[in-house]
């Protein structure tokens, strides 16, 4: 990994989001440990940003990191909680000031990882949700502030509970004797499967390996613990096994306005194969992942770089495709399981219009 290590340290564009996921969910090996160590060091740019932006002792990034260290907590929820903490510890005395503080905090968070869609989306949604009450204009500051805190906490709760709601909604779609294909380690999908196993449904799961971070291995390990029959397939064997599969369930890093999803690299491939074989593709995503981007093709995506470990050293002249995620257009998706309900992909835009316009 001589070629990888220097690129990582020199290249500030390595997605911190994926570094975190690496740290939480990747298969731990000696090489990986070394990489993960260097990856999870806080990037110098973000810490200076957070220090200089805040004239108070409170640093939103610190708060964010504190929340983020829970492996179970979605990064976006951590951001929401951090922003809620900003409000409660704010020393502003007018609404305008408070809003400006919030805006700065959310900008800082977004700058921490520019490639994370759910982070951006969640911060924006938080701002809209919290500041959209008309009552704010008429009350005096303290009660308005406490109302804001209330709404912020509520939003945090909703986001936190979103996974449980999604798990409940998707139980109807898992029938006895079905075979589910999953890709990567999505905590939402894991929640879904956990609840299904808990409800004593009989199903089996095909797990893709999910290279390069091999998160599929981790997922298969967890599922085996729940006594769910698991079969591990390498990424190239998806089309081969698609005949036996009844449905595909994936998570999402972000859901875009066209109704398509951004997810771990390989999702697009699986969706294409599933569509051509008439298998439904279900996406389990919380509603705070709805983002206002409109993607037309893969190149519209801001690439999130993630180092690929081939196990053998790669000569320098060989280029490696390092992108960590891809975009799946809405025509390949059947349904979205969200905490707002079970939706078709075209509803995403409706929701966004209602929220933002």
């Amino acid at each position: 990994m001589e070629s990888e290590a220097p690129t990582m340290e020199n290249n500030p564009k390595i997605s911190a989001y994926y570094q975190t996921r690496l740290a939480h969910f990747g298969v731990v090996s000696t090489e990986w440990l070394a990489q993960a160590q260097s990856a999870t060091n806080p990037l110098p740019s973000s810490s200076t940003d957070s220090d200089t932006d805040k004239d108070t002792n409170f640093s939103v990034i610190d708060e964010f990191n504190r929340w983020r260290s829970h492996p179970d907590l979605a990064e976006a929820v951590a951001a929401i909680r951090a922003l809620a903490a900003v409000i409660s510890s704010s020393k502003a005395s007018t609404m305008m000031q408070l809003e400006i503080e919030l805006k700065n905090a959310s900008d800082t968070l977004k700058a921490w990882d520019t490639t994370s869609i759910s982070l951006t989306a969640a911060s924006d949604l938080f701002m809209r949700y919290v500041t959209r009450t008309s009552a704010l204009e008429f009350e005096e500051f303290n009660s308005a502030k406490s109302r804001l805190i209330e709404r912020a906490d509520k939003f945090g709760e909703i986001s936190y509970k979103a996974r449980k709601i999604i798990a409940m909604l998707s139980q109807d779609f898992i029938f006895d004797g079905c075979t589910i294909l999953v890709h990567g380690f999505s905590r939402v999908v894991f929640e879904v499967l956990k609840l299904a196993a808990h409800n004593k449904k009989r199903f089996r799961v095909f797990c893709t390996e999910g290279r390069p971070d091999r998160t599929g291995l981790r997922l298969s390990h967890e599922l085996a613990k729940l006594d769910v029959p698991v079969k591990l397939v390498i990424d190239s064997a998806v089309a081969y096994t698609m005949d036996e599969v009844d449905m595909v369930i994936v998570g999402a890093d972000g859901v875009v306005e066209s109704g398509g999803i951004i997810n771990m690299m390989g999702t697009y491939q699986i969706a294409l194969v599933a569509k051509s074989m008439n298998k439904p593709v279900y996406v389990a995503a919380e509603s705070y992942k709805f983002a206002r981007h409109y993607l037309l093709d893969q190149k519209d995506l801001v690439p999130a770089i993630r180092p690929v470990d081939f196990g053998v050293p790669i000569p320098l002249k060989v280029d490696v495709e390092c992108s960590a995620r891809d975009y799946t257009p809405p025509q390949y998706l059947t349904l979205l399981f969200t905490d707002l309900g079970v939706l078709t992909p075209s509803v995403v835009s409706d929701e966004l219009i209602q929220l933002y316009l």
Partner: protein
Amino acid sequence: MDARRAPRAVIDPIVRKVGFFTPPDPIPFEFSPSANSLSPVMIPPPRHSSENHDLNSRPSVTSPSGDETIAVSGSCNSVLSELFPAPMLPAPSPKIGNGDGGGIVASSFPSGGFDLTVVKASGGVPVCKLTTVSVVNADSFAIDEREKPNRGGGSTMEGKDQAMNSKQKKDKSSKAERRALQEAQRAAKAAAKAEGNKASGTATSVNVKSAKAAKAPQKVDNTSVAASEKKGGDRPSEKDRKKDVPHPRMQYDDKSRVEKAKRRAVVNQTEARNRVELFRHLPQYEHGSQLPDLEAKFFQLDPVHPSVYKVGLQYLSGDISGGNARCIAMLQAFQDAIRDYTVPSEKTLVRDLTAKISSYVSFLIECRPLSISMGNAIRFLKSQIAKLPLTLSESESKSSLQSDIENFIYEKIILADKAIVEHAVTKIRDGDVLLTYGSSSAVEMILLHAYELGKQFRVVVVDSRPRLRGKLLLRRLVEKGLSCTYTHINAVSYIMQEVTRVFLGASSVLSNGTVYSGVGTACVAMVAHSFHVPVIVCCEAFKFHERVQLDSICSNELGDPDVISKVSGREDVNDLDAWANTENLQLLNLIYDATPSDYVSMIVTDYGMIPPTSVPVVVRKYSREHVWI
């Protein structure tokens, strides 16, 4: 009636023809319906070439009765031609319904016509007289409809009212009368078909009558949009009309209505000859005939304000074309009209001004059918007039209206275009090859703005005859320094391999995501889709409409067919010069077409970038905004 239906039911599915066809020569039939009390073969027809019989009905449906009715139609011809020596009239759409028209006509009796029916039915030649009666009925019916030339919501109501009225009246007429009437209709129709493919007038309103409520508003809307009150609305298929009256619909000429309309009309349009069957529900006029006449009348026309008149002339001659330009010109003309308007004594401003605007609108429709965006603008203006508080003085009301129009133009068109440009340039990357079709003002602005921002891209301009609007766009782009490629629409599948994005403009976007735009757009969008090239449609939100359209036929606009037969600069290409005299040849010059939503990747509006499925959400929001403004 019932006995006669049986044989026809057998023949229907096989022989029904839809689409472009020329009516076949009438083939002598041995078969004649036994239950027909009117035995038409007894009356030999003197054959005229008269144009006052509609030819739309499917020959298949009438073929069982084709031969025997020819006999009758001849005499009817003579009767009708004596009564109504009118010039050619357009006929409504040639949908399946044939004899239905008889029943419907019979049903649309206003009280005056009813007596006439009774009198005539007892007369000597029952068939012809009934045909006459039916025409008269339709005539009076037409008056009702024309008295309310409102578009949009108003006409929707009226459509329904008329539908209900006519339905009640239908029940009154007896079955024998209806059947006799239907015979006459069929005869007239078959004869007309036999005589040649001449355009004839038909009764629009009759269609409106038996339309199901859902269809009636749309039809009436179409009627007002696509044709003035005198033209035929769209005709639903035979099956739809079969509710209680089992005979097929028939369209029938309506000379008297057209007569009356012509007397009231400012623009004297002469109907085109040799029209395409499938598009008879749309008006088609001889081009170039009205302009000198109107120009001469310029200073004599009191009812029409000079600015409106001028705009109408510009539409007629094609000087103003393009959705935004037409809309802005119309609104500015209305602004002038409102400025010069004074309320007559004994009248309220709201009602009188609304009526005046409606009359201006019908004048503009006569010059050129309205586009959907113009319809939305007019609806906005009328709602603003209706919302004027009564306490305002006349001058205050007028200035408020003028500023409303000003704001509408500024916010919904000018600012909207700016917002669209802002959103759309984010989708242009360096190294892109952008394809555009025709000439859309929004797309032109986007390309120029992207170029100013320094993006590296090149443009492919696809153009098509007869209007060749792409040339103007090309000229403007090349002047600014963009690198462009120019090609004809025949080569679009060839050039599409190199293209990375397609930008299209739209005349309107409908509720099911269908993009209604200049003819050829659908072709470009479909080719792009098959090459997996994203298609981006740029359209201001005020052009969205809650209508749903499934094809390009039910509502469209017909242009001048002569421009198809001629190629400018090539005098030697003159094979089609005598096309109008050839019976078998019809030229079709469609102006719009409908692109299904599957082929559109994204719509850029001033509300942002939305998928085609979200158009109804915007329409809902938009109409709500209108309420609050």
